[in-house]
């Protein structure tokens, strides 16, 4: 009976792409504007997003990269510093998985470096998935249940989700040129 329970519960586990599917090394080209002259929409989210975001392994890998590639130096553990906060709901260039990947890949003019050629697209997707955990926007069963930091920050599983909005805190933006 006990064995059956274990087996049953094991059936509900997430599908693990332990190594990640081999993916074409192409950059994503997510749109970051909400304006579509004469109508239109941003289009469906890149299908890879769901796979990375719903996978604990990829999120853990993203967390490791977040520290090793010094993302943490600018964005802290989500609160920001040299770069904007990532745990809030304000996303200048969009908070969707594919939009975050686009920001990592392309860089952004007010100080976000372009990581193209330094990280593989797989690594960018993993990073984006981890970044989404900082605002608690991934499923609780794949988010790390303990904080990755030595200082006391709440683990994402305890935080309230902050769904992304396309707003732009005035104080963060550099002056228009």
């Amino acid at each position: 009976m006990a064995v059956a329970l274990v087996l049953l519960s094991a059936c509900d586990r997430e599908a693990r792409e332990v190594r990640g599917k081999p993916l074409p090394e192409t950059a994503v080209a997510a749109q970051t504007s909400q304006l579509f002259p004469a109508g239109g929409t941003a289009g469906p989210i890149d299908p890879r997003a769901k796979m990375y975001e719903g996978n604990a392994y990829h999120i853990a890998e993203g967390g490791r990269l977040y520290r090793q590639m010094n993302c943490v130096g600018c964005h802290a553990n989500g609160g920001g510093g040299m770069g904007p906060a990532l745990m809030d709901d304000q996303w200048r260039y969009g908070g969707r998985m594919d939009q975050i990947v686009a920001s990592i890949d392309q860089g952004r003019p007010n100080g976000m470096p372009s990581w193209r050629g330094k990280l593989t697209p797989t690594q960018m997707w993993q990073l984006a998935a981890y970044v989404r955990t900082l605002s608690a926007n991934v499923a609780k069963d794949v988010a790390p249940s303990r904080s990755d930091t030595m200082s006391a920050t709440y683990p994402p599983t305890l935080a309230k989700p902050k769904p992304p909005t396309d707003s732009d805190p005035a104080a963060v933006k550099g002056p228009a040129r």
Partner: protein
Amino acid sequence: MRWQMRAFVLAVSAAVPIAQACAQPNANDDGQWTMPAHDYASTRFSRLDQINRDNVGRLKLSFTFSTGIVKGHEAAPLVVGSTMYIVTPYPNYIYALDLSQDGAPLKWKYDPKVAAAAQGVACCDVVNRGAFYSNGKLFFNTLDNQTIAVDAATGAEVWRTKLDDINKGATMTMAPLVADGKVLVGSSGGEMGVRGWLAALDEGSGKIAWRAYSTGPDKDVLIGPSFKPFYATDRGTDLGVKTWPPEAWKIGGGNVWGWISYDPDLKLVYYGTGNPGPWNPDQRPGDNKWTTGIFARDVTTGQARWYYQFSPHDLFDHDGINEQILITMKINGKPRKVLLRAERNGFFYVMDRVTGQVIAADPYGNLNAALGVDLKTGRLIPNPDKETKQGKVVRGICPASPGMKDWNPMAFSPRTGLVYIPHLNLCMDYGAMEANYIAGTPYVGADVKMYAGPGGNRGVFTAWDPGARKARWEIKEDLPLWSGALVTAGDVVFYGTMDGWFKALDAVSGKLLWQFKAGSGIIGQPISYRAPDGKQHIAVLAGVGGWAGAVVAGGLDPRDPTAALGFAAATQDLPGKTTGGGMLYDFVLP
């Protein structure tokens, strides 16, 4: 803990300051304010006395000017003739205001077109600490590492020199100092593994005359036969290489982002070097020379004369970049040329500025990170209980990373003999971890969380008696104090708070005499000048930001205590108390 440190300092209790600052060029105050520190001795003392203790209560707003920028405004305005000059944070505009007309209208604006990407490598908000006026030109630095000379009359660019690269993580935020026909400028980037330097540019052409690095072989540091440090620990060949693990000096910090003073008689410039990189101390065993110390250099050749290290093998990000005030003090009956420094590591230093000897070093606030300064060897005595270590969280370290006092400068009044120190009362938890060097990205390796020190107040304004080596009085401020101080011959002291109060105190008693609420928090440096109307004015830039105000200026999320390198934890309440917005406020008696 205070009583313990007394044991380590020589008795100089007979020391009494003689009531006279270094004579040049403050002696004949013409009512202008041509450099951020007012004079080469960096006194920030104005000889104007129209505004005094009796009438300052009637001070009224004269005019305002919006800079249109919402980042931290740390600069001092300058006044030359009938024009006021303001340099803003990024994008580093210069505004010239015509003081001879009602309301001080804009005369010209200069836009240096600073690279927007520079914002991404500026560690602690995109600040600028001011310009310098000399011989018809204004000199200032841009966030993207250019020093620019502008014609003060017209705003036309005269020259610009590029000094470093944002792709190495370098920026420039400090105010230049012009002396002996040279424009002295230095780098920022201690949190990005930038190898720090001080450069001297020819005042007329902008050509680099010399550049002295803060790490590396002696030839790069400009250490030669004339280098005579007072303490044995600073003597030897290529210590800027040997006190580091192999190659680590190349990414070792020691940036020169603070203040320079100049003694025209000795022809020496004095300035400090910033923290070693990374913050994690276990990645850089050794004394890490020549970081977190002070250099005296010959202004003409750049050759080092002496050096003293405030924090050998820095454990806490205690940069040594604070200002030094040059005065003459009578010590044991003998007048000596000294420099005064309220150091980030928590000690108030009185040093012989000819030899580099430490005469006294006393704690001027809550301190447990060090046990004292050994005056025989000159060495800081660390507290083993508070030593930071990789993989360990050390709690309750006082002072925190911004130190007992950060960049915001103090003032000295030769009338009262007191030094007026705007500073901090912050402690921290510090967890060091391995940092990975990637050029142009942060090289820190520390999770930091700051909070108010004993007493619960985060700021302190201290009137320090350098002769008696103790505080005469102190004012507790709730928020961290991040503005400069100004003192006048009317015996009034001015400073601002991060929630926007601009305050005037009695320089003798510390009594609050007047205050004004500005639209945004004040982290700028107040000045005093005589306007074309013949009246004494007081001016200050408001506009919260800087490291302490990054939580507002950067729109950070303070739920993460490690945001803004841990400062966010100590200023979580700031977004509820002030908003950004650069504005110059000018005051005069009715």
